[in-house]
């Protein structure tokens, strides 16, 4: 069945809080991991499938968060309306930015998106009247969903889990359609994609907008969940971490991206004890994955498992099979 993996994953997400209802690690870190998964799944559409890069994605995350924060605290907007406004702002900006920026390839695209992320971060720090500057904005009211106010860690876990599953479902659907194939075609050979009648500039613009929408959505939820936002949550390090999640999990795999996000979030929590060495271990891990499992942790381990089963005479035998993902991992901007 097409969505078998999805249902299995959903069951696990629902089961966890039932098994550990009072476990801080499961509920709070789980919610944080879910938010990161939404971000990573959205970014994976752009990076993994369309083969473009964005080192400024935290900016869209921040836009959603600050739109919700500013509109609810200063203008008294209802949370859902502020969330929609955040989506609109981030989507519009992504759309305006996409045409000029996505003409660039490889390192140039990376630099341009990085620059964009830095600019947005600087604005968040400097526009003190609106954003509260480096101190951020606090007192963000809880999210109200048509009468139900989301309160407490467990409820937030539920809301974020539902949002994450929605994001994964949308992404799986998109990828498994002509739209997804067109995106992968842009990644595979932009030259040939155009000759198949694909308006590659438009496809890249749209996927950029969609991934910005995923990020802004996660940002709005984040602002309400934390009741506080500050620019530090949306700086360059966060953008890099998001790309790391996508790569760690396995590029061009929706579950890979989600699992990469979850794994990295858990890892960071686990490394809190080694505070001073966090970046060191983080970096070493990334290097190890790149060297030993270039397809990513999730995809790579899945493949190793299948190969192992086959060697033991179990599992389906597929002759002449070379992994899709091996071929899929190319330099995002490599020219035809």
């Amino acid at each position, binding site marked *: 069945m097409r969505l078998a993996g999805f249902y299995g994953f959903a069951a696990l997400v629902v089961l966890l809080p039932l098994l550990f209802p009072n476990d801080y690690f499961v509920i709070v870190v789980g919610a944080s991991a879910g938010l990161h998964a939404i971000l990573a799944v959205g970014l994976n559409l752009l990076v993994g499938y369309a083969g473009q890069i964005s080192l400024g994605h935290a900016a869209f995350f921040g836009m959603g968060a600050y739109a919700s924060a500013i509109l609810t605290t200063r203008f008294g907007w209802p949370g859902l309306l502020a969330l929609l406004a955040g989506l609109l702002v981030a989507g519009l900006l992504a759309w305006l930015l996409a045409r000029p920026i996505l003409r660039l390839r490889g390192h140039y695209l990376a630099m341009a998106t990085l620059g964009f992320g830095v600019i947005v971060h600087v604005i968040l720090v400097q526009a003190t009247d609106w954003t509260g500057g480096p101190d951020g904005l606090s007192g963000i009211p809880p999210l109200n969903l048509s009468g139900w106010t989301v309160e407490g860690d467990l409820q937030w876990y539920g809301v974020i889990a539902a949002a994450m599953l929605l994001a994964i479902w949308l992404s799986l*659907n998109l990828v498994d359609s002509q*739209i997804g194939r067109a995106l*992968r075609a842009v990644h595979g050979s932009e030259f*040939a994609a155009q000759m*198949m*009648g694909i308006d590659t500039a438009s496809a890249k613009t749209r996927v950029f907008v969609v991934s910005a929408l995923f990020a802004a959505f996660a940002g709005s939820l984040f602002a309400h969940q934390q009741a506080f936002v500050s620019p530090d949550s949306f700086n360059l390090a966060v953008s890099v971490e998001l790309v790391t999640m996508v790569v760690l999990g396995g590029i*061009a795999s929706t579950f890979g991206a989600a699992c990469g996000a979850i794994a990295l979030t858990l890892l960071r929590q686990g490394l809190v004890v080694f505070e001073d060495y966090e970046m060191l271990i983080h970096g070493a891990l990334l290097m190890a994955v790149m060297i030993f499992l270039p397809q990513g942790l999730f995809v790579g381990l899945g493949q190793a498992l299948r190969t192992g089963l086959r060697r033991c005479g179990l599992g389906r035998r597929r002759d002449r099979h070379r992994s899709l993902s091996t071929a899929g991992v190319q330099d995002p901007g490599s020219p035809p």
Partner: protein
Amino acid sequence: MNALSPSTPLLRVEGLEQSFGGVMALAGVSFQLDEGVIQAVIGPNGAGKTTLFNALCGFYRPSAGSIRFAGQELRGLPPYRIAAHGIARTFQNLQLFFNMTVIENVMVGCHLRARTRWLAAALRLPQVRREERQLRQWAREALTLCDLADWAEQSAGALPYGLMKRVEIARALAARPRLLLLDEPAAGLNDTETLALRELIARIRASGVTVLLVEHHMPLVMGVSDRLLVLDYGSVLAEGAPAEIQADPRVIAAYLGGAVHYAV
């Protein structure tokens, strides 16, 4: 399907010019192509054959001239709009989507016939499911025409070279083009594969597609083409039936000293 009168050519190229920093790669190329014909473009290396293809497809913006296809001017259009007019092509250097299976590659080829929008796809509406089945069906037909049905679910990157070239043809045909441009389809193929290619090109023409090919493999060119266009230094040196071209002293002179020999 054909709204043109018998006397109007499918493709009429006039005075096409393309220069790269002062070098005239195409110096006023004019020719025409009738519907249902297999025409080959030959000429020594650097004669402008691939440049001509890239100009026809919109990858280059020719500085002068006209490209009239089925009565419409194509010069200056981007490649994806030219494809929509009914021109498909293969590439001299393989441009397969190595990150996909064979059938997915060919399904991308059906893109012009797909109607799915982003929102519908994300929500997996019923029409998207229907279209998926339809595209798969069309792709299978193109694969069958190219004898690739058995390879449908293989990763495109795992195929032998000769089959990869064939997938490119299937992918181009999946767009249901009126004109198919083949850029060196026999390059890198062995004799058996070349023979099969020759048979495939004839089959493609029989299915109602006009073929324009660039090729160095002279036995194939002479055997399969109705017409030949000889380019040299970016201009048309000669045009005619294979027998006329073989007897043309200018063509023989242009090729003298080269490694190419005619053998039919």
